[in-house]
């Protein structure tokens, strides 16, 4: 059993696990693109876009691709907007870690005890990319540190983000369900059921935050340079900003170790956390998840093993990390343990009677309703620095059902509704874009009472905007839970049943060429 440790709690910036990781990365980087145990081959397993790799100088005309059969088996596998997001990335990390141990052993290093470190960016002052990854030099001063990546232009590439706590959150770890009801409501902690899903659809909770935004905050985009034609007006995205280049950056694997750690934490930390339904804090039990996309006829998850042979895996193989022979040094998701029972706290905050259902095992998810409350009814375009403010028109009878549930709880469960803001069919020509979403009561001319609902990252959006993609260019639908905001508006007497204001504010400036197209903005209630 080996232990994955916090990179910021190692003995020093270049402690043994980091030093050997760097040596292993260098050894893998020396291999050709066509070699299944090479760094670039592994990155292409996550995603591969040759013209973008060429434009970054990752590949050149001299780099021969693997055979079509190998590319069809291994390349472009990363699972996003899917309930396979977590298990696929766990298998991917396991395979990379195994390969890295193989390289370290060949270099005479401590392969048996070595493990990938994780990057817990939630702890104070630790949101910056770890120091060894920011250094041009090895610890001895020589200048070809393989952990350093030039194409890392996000705010975290140079130091901590002063706005990190505002932008990045861990709300997903309090969602009891792995896969929520979706359809405008919660997608759950781990995401909605899909087949093999390369891009497009709805993000799962932990994929949306903190996964996506960390990619954008790390990768960013070049402040001046643009891509070659026909994308000549699109700023060059950092490697971490785009799924097809993200895994070329060595810090990718430390970020994903943290996401994997959050999954393990969600499963079992803290011990004895309150479950309302028997399936709470558990992974999906059905064959379609356990047996992976092959159960619905899709391509299987496949990784190269250290000898170049093929390892096929399904979520059932990787859902228990003990079976994979590793553990984490600490399962505290952020800087502090999550609230013990957020549902009970919310009920108390609204002044409702604690329902008997909270005592557990009541099967409350049965018959739950997800209902559209209202929408903008038209699209919205976001570009430049300017904020866009709009009023959503609500359906009064549906909104009345929401306010009734907040006042007296839903019949049956006694619990109040949860509320979700949907940014539907979001498209752009760049993934390296962030914008903030605020919600406030209608009729507030200066927006003084608006509240931040979340910061949206467009990681994966370019791929999901392609008409030739798996969802015909539908883009990505972002589902933001705004239950807390609605509760506060309700308690303050400011929750109307006819309108609700939404304001979108770009983080920095969004170039005109990569303007964000939002198909519609809608609001949903989800009865509990």
């Amino acid at each position, binding site marked *: 059993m080996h232990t994955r440790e916090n990179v910021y709690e190692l003995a020093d910036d270049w402690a043994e696990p980091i030093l050997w990781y760097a040596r292993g990365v260098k050894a893998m980087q020396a291999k050709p693109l066509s070699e299944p145990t090479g760094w670039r081959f592994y990155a292409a397993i996550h995603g591969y876009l040759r013209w973008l790799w060429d434009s970054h100088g990752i590949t050149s005309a001299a780099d021969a691709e693997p055979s079509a059969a190998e590319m069809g088996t291994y390349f472009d596998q990363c699972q996003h907007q899917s309930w396979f997001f977590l298990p696929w990335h766990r298998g991917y990390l396991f395979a990379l870690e195994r390969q890295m141990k193989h390289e370290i052993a060949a270099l005479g290093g401590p392969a048996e005890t070595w493990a990938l470190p994780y990057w817990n960016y939630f702890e104070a002052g630790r949101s910056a990319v770890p120091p060894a990854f920011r250094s041009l030099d090895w610890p001895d001063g020589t200048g070809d540190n393989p952990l350093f990546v030039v194409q890392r232009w996000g705010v975290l590439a140079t130091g901590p983000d002063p706005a990190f706590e505002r932008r990045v959150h861990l709300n997903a770890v309090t969602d009891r369900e792995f896969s929520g*009801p*979706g*359809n*405008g409501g919660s997608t759950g902690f781990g995401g909605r059921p899909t*087949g*093999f899903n*390369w891009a497009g659809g709805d993000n799962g909770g932990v994929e949306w935050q903190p996964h996506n935004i960390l990619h954008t905050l790390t990768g960013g985009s070049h402040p001046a340079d643009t891509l070659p034609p026909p994308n000549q007006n699109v700023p060059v995205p950092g490697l971490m900003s785009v799924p097809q280049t993200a895994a070329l950056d060595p810090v990718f694997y430390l970020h994903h170790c943290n996401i994997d750690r959050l999954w393990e934490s969600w*499963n079992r930390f803290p011990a004895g956390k309150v479950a309302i339904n028997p*399936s709470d804090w*558990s*992974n*999906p*039990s059905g*064959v379609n998840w*356990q*047996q992976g996309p092959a*159960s*619905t*006829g*899709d391509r299987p998850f496949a990784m190269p*093993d*250290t000898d170049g*042979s093929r*390892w*096929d*895996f399904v979520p*059932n*193989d*990787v*859902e*228990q990390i003990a*079976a*994979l022979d590793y553990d984490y040094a600490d399962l505290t998701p952020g800087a502090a343990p999550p609230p013990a029972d957020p549902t009970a706290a919310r009920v108390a905050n609204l002044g409702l009677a604690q329902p008997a259902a909270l005592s557990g095992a009541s099967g409350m998810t*049965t018959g*739950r*309703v*997800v209902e*559209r409350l*209202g929408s903008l*009814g*038209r*699209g919205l375009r976001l570009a430049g620095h300017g904020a866009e403010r709009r009023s959503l028109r609500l*359906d009064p*009878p*549906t909104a009345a*059902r929401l306010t009734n549930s907040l006042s007296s709880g839903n019949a049956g469960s006694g619990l109040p509704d949860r509320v979700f803001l949907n940014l*539907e*069919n979001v498209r752009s020509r760049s993934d390296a874009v962030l914008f903030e979403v605020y919600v406030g009561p209608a009729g507030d001319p200066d927006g003084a009472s608006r509240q931040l609902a979340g910061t949206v990252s467009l990681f994966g959006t370019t791929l999901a905007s392609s*008409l*030739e*993609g*798996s*969802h*015909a*260019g*539908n883009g990505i639908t972002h589902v933001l839970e705004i239950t807390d905001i609605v509760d506060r508006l309700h308690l303050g007497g400011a929750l109307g049943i006819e309108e609700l204001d939404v304001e979108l504010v770009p983080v920095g400036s969004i170039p005109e060429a990569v303007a964000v197209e939002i*198909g*519609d903005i*809608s609001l949903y209630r989800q*009865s509990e």
Partner: protein
Amino acid sequence: MTVAPLRREAMIAVALATVSGISWAALLTGPAVISAPALCTGRLIADLPSGAELRYLLAQASPAALATSWTLMVAAMMVPLFASPLCHVLVRSLSRARLRMIGSFVGGYLAVWLAAGVPLIGLAITVRAAFAEPRIAVGVVFAVAVAWQACGWKRVALNRCHARPVLGGEMAALSFGTRHGLWCLAGCAPLMIAALLAPAYTGLAMIAAALWIWAERLEPPRGPGFGLIWPRRASRAAAHHLRLALAPPRRAASGRGRHGASASLPT
């Protein structure tokens, strides 16, 4: 009425399966005036003597009967395909507007297919009349259908069938239904004509065409290019579940914490 998402999806599946099942029953075993062997346009068209005129056909079957059987054919073959877009319409509708939204979507979709019946049946008759030997007519249409199945435009049409646009109201739902119907028509029409012309075995040909059309919708998207899209995903899923049925999986499906710890790992 508010309905939980899972129950809603099940209700839609049952409703569509019922409509399709009744239509198949009517086509395959119903009265001669509407059934596939007698009319569904296949047998009648296939039996036309070379050069026959339209009035010969109309003497055998009225436009109303032709329309009825075409409607049944569309309902039987195409209705199961719009379960997913119909769910999308429901999700993006206010509760009290759902019936209107469904009506708009279904209306747009069916209008395209029903209107297409006139030129498609006309084309089938024309092709049949152009050849003395029915088998040649079938062969020609089948070859054209296969060529269409393999061309890049077919791929474009198939991909567009996966579009799920935003829906701001009934007009948007009508537009979605119409566009979805047009892409569906573009993707499937050549196969439908081939099924229309298949002599003696029209019912079987229709079933085969319907299964193929359903299975190819499950395939992942393809970029521009030439090549048949084989229904690999449906075949693999069927084979996988057959294997599961014959040999149970390594562990019975259950949630975390209720398994043993063995895993299929590289050695």
